[in-house]
């Protein structure tokens, strides 16, 4: 496989992040040659997709079913008022291309399921979990473990959010931590302020960049929890479950894609 190089145009466009301490052209080239699967382009995943695009990722695969409604507009920053009724992944692609035309954006107007998730993640370098329901998060987690694809898990409710990164076979997967969903969870009813989902989406983009490039220290085996009502941030150490039915039997004999 041919490894892309940074063009003069790339070097100019990204020169401010290329001066980050410890961040080099090699990191940028890794980003340019990588694919991120974004499951959900709403308030969280849409923000992640946008920041990965402007950071210089090579390819995005956006998966999200359904059309834009007025009540999406308080948080879904890739959408505009004039697009109500249009398919959200089409809108997301249009916005991203307006801002970062060099990014390849592939779109899928679908939900993540146990049947289709493996195909979505198999050629990705990282997956971002931002769907507003547990079945889709579980399906993505299962596929990422199966294909040893790193996954960034982030979720919010009201003014709370949590975030952690998964390196299958090395760090706890989603199922290691959450064996059972909240049966009362309502996909379209949770309270959300756009600025909060935006913070989470930004942090998930940073995690994805770290996982892809090897820059910095991702939240592996650590969970960040925060509340933006009182600005309380904390991190807890988390552990794999050796009996986890999803990843417990995973014998790591080779590195994960990153």
């Amino acid at each position, binding site marked *: 496989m041919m490894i892309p190089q940074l063009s003069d145009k790339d070097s100019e466009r990204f020169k401010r992040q290329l001066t980050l301490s410890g961040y080099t052209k090699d990191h940028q080239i890794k980003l340019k040659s990588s694919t991120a699967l974004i499951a*959900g382009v*709403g*308030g*969280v*995943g849409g923000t992640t997709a946008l920041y990965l695009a402007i950071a210089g990722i090579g390819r995005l695969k956006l998966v999200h079913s359904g059309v834009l409604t007025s009540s999406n507009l308080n948080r879904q920053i890739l959408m505009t008022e004039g697009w109500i009724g249009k398919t959200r992944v089409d809108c997301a692609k249009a916005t991203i291309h307006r801002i970062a035309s060099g990014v390849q954006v592939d779109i899928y107007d679908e939900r993540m399921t146990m049947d289709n998730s493996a195909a979505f993640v198999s050629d990705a370098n990282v997956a971002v*979990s*931002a*769907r*507003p*329901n*547990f079945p889709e*998060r579980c399906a993505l987690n299962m596929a990422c473990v199966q294909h040893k694809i790193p996954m960034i898990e*982030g*979720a*919010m*409710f*009201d003014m*709370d*959010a*949590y975030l952690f990164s998964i390196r299958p076979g090395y760090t706890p997967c989603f199922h290691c*931590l*959450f*064996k*059972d*969903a*909240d049966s*009362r*969870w309502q*996909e379209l009813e*949770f309270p*959300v302020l756009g600025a909060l*989902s935006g913070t989470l989406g930004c942090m998930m983009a940073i995690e994805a960049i770290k996982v892809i490039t090897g820059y910095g220290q991702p939240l592996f085996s650590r*969970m960040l*929890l925060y*509340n933006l009502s*009182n600005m*309380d941030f*904390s*991190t*807890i*150490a*988390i*552990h794999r479950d050796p009996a986890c039915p999803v990843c417990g039997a995973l014998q790591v004999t080779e590195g994960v894609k990153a």
Partner: protein
Amino acid sequence: MNATTITVKLFGTLRGRMESDQKVIISDNETIHTVIERLSIDPQAWYLFSVNGQQAGGDTQLHDGDVLMIVPPISGG
């Protein structure tokens, strides 16, 4: 048994059941499971627990000054 004080932090959909960083007096060596029952939190539901920043099982015994965080699964995206 001696009385002891812990701090309980509830997260996400559990928040609102009581004040943030609530001090709770328990008997020394009570477990997380018994504290859950004391707080009238559904014991059948799944939660992630941490004590003093470390993930913990429900049978973990609690001691004076411990900070217990109870994290339900959330899925807002």
